[in-house]
Every structure is written in C-alpha cells, then in structure tokens.
C-alpha cells in the first residue's frame, strides 16, 4: 500500500514545481540561445579575423640562407665555393639540458672532449633564440644514425646546409680570406638593423680578405620557407607554394691567375715573404701571395684554441698578409727611383764615380759591399753600387726623390678592394718638419741612406710591384686592380690612370739598366728565365732587418740566425723589350736579395709568360715541315 502523508499538499507542490520547472527550462533555453548568439558572433561576424589569427598560429616563415656567391680567378677557376653540409642544430630554451644532450650525442657521432667544451661555450655564447649548429660535416651514416634516434634528443634537429669550401686551401687564404661563424659581436656591430639571416644557425660571414670586403655582395638575400609549425615550434609540414626563394650572392671574379698564385706558393715553400705580380699594361693583379699560408677551410670549421695558437705564435706569421702589411725599407730597388729623379733633374748618366768600398763624407765612412771601381749610372744600377747612389742622392736631394717615388705609388694605400694595407713611408723634408718637432730639419747626412733605400723609407710588396709596373709600362701610372667584376658589373680597369710625368728616354734608361742587372749585374746568376728570346729585367734589394752594431756595419746580414737576417727584395718585369708582367718578391730574412728572391721571381714569371699565347709564339719557333701528310693516319 503506497501513500503519502502529505496528500493534501500534493497538488500544490506539483503545481508549484511545474511552474518553476517551466521557468528553469526557459532560462536554460535562453542560456543555450545566448551561446548560439556568441557562436554566430565568433564564427560568422568575426570569422575572418579569427581565421587570420589561426593562420598566424599555424604558419611561420623560416629563413633560408642564400647560396654564397662564388669567388673565381680571372679564368673562371673556382677559388671559393659551397658544398652541402649535413649538420645538427640545437634549439635551446630554458629547459634544455645541454650536458645530457651532448653526452647522448657523443655516443652517436665522434665528439672529443676539446670539441665538447668548445661546443658548450658556443651554445652559451650564441645569440638568444638562435639555434646553434652543434655538429657539422657529418657523414651520411652519422647523419642518418642521429636522425633515427632523434626522439631521444629533444631540441636537436638534423638539417642540410651549405658550407664554404676553398679548394686551394692555402694559396688564396690571405686575398680571398675566409668566412667564419657569426659572433654576438658581429651582430651588434652591424647595428639595430642586423640582417636576421645572421642569426641563422651555422651562418657564416666574411672575416678576412675579399670574403670580408665584399661580404654583402657575396651574401645575397635570404629567402624564406613557409612551414606549418605546432605549438612548440616544430615543423610539421612544408608549404612550397608559400616559399620566397633566396637571392643568391653575386659571384666575384678576381684578376688573380690561379696557376701563377699556386706556383708562387709552391716556390715559397716554408720561406716567409710575399710575391705580387701585375699585368703592367692593365694593372690587373695576377698574383698576390703571402707565405707561409694556412688552410682557410680550418677557419670555416672553427679552430680549436690550440690550433689557433699554433698559427698565431709561429714566428713566420702565417696569419699576416705580408704582401700588404710587411713594410720594410725597399733597399736597392729604390735606386731606380733615385736614378730617375736624378735624370729628371738633368743629372748626366755618363758621370762616373769611383767606388773603393768606403767613401768618406760628412765626417764618417760610408760603405759599399764591393769595391766596384769606376761606374757610370747604368753600371751602378747593374752592380747596385751604394757609393754611387750616396752621391747621386746628395746631388738630387730628398724632396725630388720622394716626389718621384710617390708618383710610382710608394707611400700610398692602393685601393684594391681588400682592407689591411699599411701605407709605409716616403720621407722628405716636409715629413721631418711635421714629425720631428725637436729636429724639424732634413739633414744632408740623412740623404745618402735614402739614396740606397734605407732609413725612414718603407714599402710593401704591392707598392713595389706597382712601382715596377709603372716603370715597365712607361706611359701610364697604372693602378692595381684585384676585383675584375662583381656579379656582372666589371670594375674599372687599372689602365684608366693619369700618365707618368717623366721623359720617356729617362724611363727607357732605367729599364735598360734593369735589363743589365739581369744581364751582367747583381742578379745575373739568379734571374735567367731560359725562355729563349724572352728575358727579364729586374733590380735586387736588401733591407736591413735591424741596425747592425759597430763591427758588422757594412756587412749584409745574409747569414746567422733567421730572425736576424736581412729581408731580400727583387722587382722585375718581362719581357725586357716589351714588358707585360711586372712583379715584386719579398723574402723575409732571406739574406741577399738576388740570391733569395730572384730565383723565386723567375719561377713565378715563367708561369705567367708560358701561359701568354703571344709570348709562347715568340718562344716556340715553328718547326719547318717538309710534308704535312707525313704521319697522318692512312
């Protein structure tokens, strides 16, 4: 029996409940309608705005680095190019346990302790937000091994980049330079508008030579890949239609000739010095070598501290570009300038001075290395007599000598596009007035030293090569040109230069005297080309590397400890009768100029001459043939 004890109230309770339930149902329905209204607002009225926001979430543009421009020699031989590089990137955030990841990586790819500690520094130093390339240049096997184990390496992604490669490793290291990783300093140095590509992992910028000077041309413009990313920024898909292709860097063609430059490096071996060759008609620099050199590819990879120390502390200083920065007195090569200045001042070249090895003037003895006897100017140049030029210089005076030397490019920084040249010094009375406030006068006693290219005067190999080129050219003050073209844009030729304000017959006199140097003078034993009618003209020079003390004065420091020996110069041009190639060679601490430098000049010059078809035609006489049919296949 079922019954309620509140039967009288049942109807009242039920009616009340049903009214209230109806009310509640209405409220719930209103709530649902409100939700529907909000949905219409979001999904219909503001849909386009949210669709845009969703795409911003979904897609990201990842910079794709442009291929770096090639660097070529005059004939199109590649001096710097790019090769594919399998590498691993680490995207770090606050939670990354770098040590653990590196430890796990070390089981997959060879990583020694030195490498590991350097990596940790690099990861710490890397600009914020930029992924770090932690392993590069992996073999395909290593690359795939890491790829398979990727889930165990959070934050590590494998990718294929490009890395710079220098096929001739050392020969062009100083001129072409090298690229290396971007440091935080590089980024701040470029100011607030730093190219974002600089933060790209493994991106490298030019740090030396042409790579540095023309970095922006070579770099090109970064493109972008449109990728779909998840909330953690991992790439889920690529969208090739949205890609913006990168603009490749412009190729840069240099005027250098790789055959000549490579031969020059061979010829130097472990000797320290520089060799510069120019086409004396156009000013094109065919060779710009500094020796000993280093492997530029090592810098691309990154040197360990020990490797860098080994290079930096080696006494023959492989890291310096000696062709531009090793400034020394020109020694006897400077006598060409003294002679020309004298001729221009009306000095009679047939005038004879007698050399007895010692000449007393101004209350002190002045030495020569031989007792040359009676010499006219031609003989004095050929035999490189100091006593003759002490007196000639005194007759001309420092200011005229300096003015002549400057016209030939000494004391000047030549704009060949790459930085790091030292101007050297061509002294005159003005120089003394300006720089020696306590003794602002040029003393006559300082002139004889200048006459033999010693004392204040200092030059580098490039300047001496310019001097030799202008002497050989005879008409135009050619300017050196290193960069042939950037992209399609040719750089102005060095031949577009003002004329040389010297009498042609005086220049011809100096040239023929330089011919005599090789013919019977100081370089006769060392500077024979052995190319038939093609002969070289030149001038030897020896620069004191330090002041000789008392007893040794007048002796050339040709022997003894390497670091104490003299620097050997040789300038040359060939063919002597119709000059095309001019060069300068410096052998640091090489001793006597002719012996150390001239043979190197010969070897390098031979390459240039033998490559020149017109010169070859002069050397190789056609063999007369009786019957052209003989030997032909039947």
């Amino acid at each position: 029996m079922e019954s309620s004890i509140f039967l009288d109230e049942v109807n009242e309770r039920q009616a009340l409940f049903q009214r209230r339930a109806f009310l509640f149902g209405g409220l719930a329905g209103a709530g649902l309608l409100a939700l529907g209204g909000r949905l219409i607002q979001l999904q219909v009225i503001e849909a386009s705005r949210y669709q845009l926001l969703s795409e911003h979430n979904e897609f990201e543009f990842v910079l794709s680095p442009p291929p770096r421009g090639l660097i070529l020699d005059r004939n199109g031989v590649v001096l710097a190019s790019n090769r594919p590089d399998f590498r691993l990137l680490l995207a770090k955030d606050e939670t990354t346990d770098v040590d653990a990841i590196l430890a796990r990586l070390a089981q997959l790819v060879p990583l020694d302790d030195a490498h590991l500690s350097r990596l940790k520094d690099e990861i710490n130093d890397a600009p914020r937000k930029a992924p770090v390339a932690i392993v590069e240049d992996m073999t395909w096997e290593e690359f795939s091994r890491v790829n398979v184990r990727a889930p165990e390496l959070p934050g590590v992604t494998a990718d294929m980049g490009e890395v710079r490669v220098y096929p001739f490793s050392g020969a062009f290291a100083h001129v072409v330079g090298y690229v290396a990783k971007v440091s935080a300093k590089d980024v701040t140095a470029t100011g607030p508008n730093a190219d974002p590509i600089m933060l790209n992992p493994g991106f490298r910028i030019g740090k030396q030579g042409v790579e540095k000077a023309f970095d922006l041309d070579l770099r090109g413009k970064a493109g972008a890949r449109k990728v779909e990313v998840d909330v953690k920024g991992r790439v889920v898909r690529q969208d090739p239609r949205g890609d913006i292709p990168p603009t490749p860097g412009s190729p840069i063609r240099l005027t250098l000739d790789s055959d000549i430059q490579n031969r020059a490096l061979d010829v130097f071996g472990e000797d320290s010095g520089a060799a510069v060759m120019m086409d004396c008609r156009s000013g094109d620099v065919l060779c710009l070598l500094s020796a000993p050199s280093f492997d530029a590819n090592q810098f691309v990879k990154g040197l360990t501290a020990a490797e860098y120390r080994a290079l930096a502390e080696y006494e023959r200083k492989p890291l310096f570009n000696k062709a531009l920065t090793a400034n020394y007195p020109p020694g006897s090569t400077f006598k060409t300038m003294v002679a020309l200045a004298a001729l221009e001042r009306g000095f009679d070249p047939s005038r004879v001075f007698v050399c007895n090895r010692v000449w007393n003037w101004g209350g002190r003895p002045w030495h020569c290395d031989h007792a040359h006897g009676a010499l006219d100017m031609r003989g004095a140049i050929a035999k490189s007599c100091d006593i003759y030029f002490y007196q000639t210089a005194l007759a001309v005076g420092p200011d005229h000598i300096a003015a002549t030397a400057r016209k030939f490019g000494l004391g000047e920084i030549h704009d060949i596009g790459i930085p790091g040249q030292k101007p050297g010094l061509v002294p005159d009375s003005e120089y003394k007035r300006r720089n020696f406030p306590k003794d602002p006068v040029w003393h006559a006693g300082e002139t004889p030293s200048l006459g033999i290219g010693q004392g204040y005067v200092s030059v580098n190999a490039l300047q001496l090569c310019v001097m030799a080129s202008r002497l050989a050219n005879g008409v135009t003050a050619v300017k050196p040109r290193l960069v042939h073209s950037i992209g399609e844009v040719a750089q102005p030729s060095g031949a577009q230069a003002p004329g040389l304000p010297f009498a042609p017959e005086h220049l011809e006199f100096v040239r023929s005297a330089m011919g005599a140097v090789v013919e019977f003078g100081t370089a006769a034993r060392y500077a024979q080309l052995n190319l038939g009618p093609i002969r070289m003209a030149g001038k030897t020079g020896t620069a004191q590397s330090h002041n000789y003390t008392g007893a040794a004065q007048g002796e050339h420091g040709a022997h003894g400890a390497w670091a104490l020996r003299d620097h050997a110069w040789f300038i040359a041009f060939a063919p002597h009768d119709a000059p095309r190639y001019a060069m300068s060679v410096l052998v640091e601490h090489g001793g006597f100029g002719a012996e150390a430098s001239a043979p190197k000049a010969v070897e390098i010059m031979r390459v240039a001459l033998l490559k020149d078809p017109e010169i070859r035609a002069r050397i190789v006489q056609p063999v007369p043939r009786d019957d052209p049919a003989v030997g032909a296949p039947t």
Partner: protein
Amino acid sequence: MTVSAIRGPGERERLVVKLTQIDWTLCLLLTAIAGIGVVMLYSIAGGAWSPWAGRHLILYGLCFVLMIALGTVDLRVWFALAYPVYGLGLLMLLAVAVVGHSTMGAQRWLDIGPVRIQPSEIIKIGLVLALARFYHGLSAARARWSWWLLVPAVLIGAPAALVAHQPDLGTAVLIAATGGLMMALAGLSLRVVGIGLLGLGAVVPAAFFFALKAYQRARLLTFLNPEADRSGAGYHIIQSEIALGSGGMLGKGLGLGTQSQLNFLPEKSTDFIFASMAEELGLLGCATVLLLYGAVIFVTLRTAAIAHSHFGRLAASGVTISFALCVLINGAMVMGLAPVVGVPMPLLSFGGTVMITMMAGFALVLSVRVHRYSEVTRG
C-alpha cells in the same frame, strides 16, 4: 498519457514492460552527443582511436548498458539509497581532503585499489538524491521558507565547501548552483531567491579578494582581459576563441582543425573539446550539438514534470539542472564568456568519472520515467 500497455496490477513490475517504458528518445539524444564526441576525439588524435576515441566509445557503451539497467531499478530503491550515496560521497570528499591525489595542483582524486575516483562527481548525484529525498517529505509551506531549509542548506554547503577546499572552484560553484536551483524548483520563496541573488552579488566581490587563491584570482582577471596575458593564463581563452572563430560557418573539416591538431588549443580532448569541434565542424556542428543538448534538457525536464512522486520530480530535475549548468558553464568558458574553470562538456569531453556519474544521473531520470506512476513512501 499512454497507459494502454498496462493491463493489470503488477504488470508494470515486469522487466520487459519496464524496457518499453524506457525513454528511448533520451537514449538516442545521449548516444548522438556521445557519438559526436567519439568522432571529434578520433579526429583530434590525428585520425586515431587511441588515446581517446576508442576508450570514450567503450566507456559510453558500458555506461549505456549500466544506464538502462539502473533505469529499470525501482524508484523506491533509489529513494532508499539517497542518503547512503550522499553520505558516501561526503565521506570520500573528506578522505580526499586528507589523503587525496594531487593533480594539477588540486586534490581531487582518490585511489581505491586500482580505481581512481573523483568524489566530487559522486557527490553531484548524491546531492541530487538527498535533496529530492528531503523535499519529498517537506510540505510546500515549509519548502517556501522555514527553519527546515537549514537541512538542504547544510546538505549543499558541506560538499560545496569541501570541493572548494580541494580547490576546485568550478565544481564547487556547480554543486552549490545545482542545489540552489533544486531548492528554487522545490518551492523556495522567489523573494528569498531574489534576496539570495542580491546577497551573492555583494559576497562575490568580497570573496574575490579574500577567499580566492592567487591563481583563481588570476584566472578571473584573465577572463576579464585575456589580452593582458597572452602566453600565460589568457592563452587558453585566446586560443579557444581563435579555434571557434576560425571554424566559420561550416568548419575546416574533420581532421583539418589546425588549432587542435597542432596543439595550440589546450585541453583539446577534455574541457575544450567544444572548441575543437567548433573549429572542425563550424557553426553548423555547434548549433546541432547545442540543439541536442537543448533537447536533452527538454526531455528530462518533461520527465520530471510528469512524475507522480515529488522525489521523482526533484531527482529528475536535479539531474537536468546539473547537466544544463555543465553545458552552459563549459560553453560560456570555451566561448570566452566565463572564466576558465574545470567543468567538462557532458558526454562530449573525454573523461571517465564525469561520464559515469552523468550516465548514472540519466539512469535516475529513466527510472523516474519508468516509475512515473509510482508513489514513493516517506520512509
């Protein structure tokens, strides 16, 4: 009313007859919603049954059978179990307060052997039963306004306070609101209801500054201005709105919702499943689901209205209230109209305990309908 099937006394007690009395419309509606949930969970897993869709389907299937079975249980049994279930839920809430399992910084779980139980879900159904039972024996006059109403106030206040202490503010509010609305449906004076609402309006700001924890305060503030904290607490709301808005009229298509597929949308399988669905199925899908929810509310409320027993009325309406509040709160939260609180979308969201208690609630509604002509004694 269709009573033609009834031929004689005791006829209604036969199982076969009971099954014919099951509200199959409600079953169909619930299955449709759960089915959409399975499709969405399959889609956001990248087109895979694991980890969500398969388990959701199996759980719903089991719960469905359980629901039908419980739906045939005599309403008097439910009546008898009302206080025990409530008492058990309250005890478990107390246990959680002492040795609960901490998830996301809140003590909400209780491990009993291999089973992990969320007592706040059990108390939801327990409270509905207990209130229904209490009001079953209360006259309309007393239900309107009397000292007797201290009993339901305590019945509601005790679990709400314990859940708020966990802290799970969303569920606590849900429990309090369910209880409050049941009191209103049971006949609480509308004047008192109005005064109560005004009182709440005064207490809430005070509670905001003195009773809430820092993260709860931050959530509320973030809700008011999500742009102020884009990557932190505002992230949920912004990403959810982007998911909804970018869905547009017809949606991006199943499996093509970038917001959920790429994990920009947090809690995409649980609390924010509605946003996942809105993104992939658009306004069309959302409107369909809201209509289904509305239909469920209508059908269950109608069941409450036609029940002969006051216990049945209140029990069915209590389940409806709890369900409707869940839907409205979750919907408002996902659409950026309410602060982010941990209230799931019933049947759509993935989650075990919620599904079980929700289906148990509907079993109660089914039982009310099956036994709608029964009078339930007071004792």
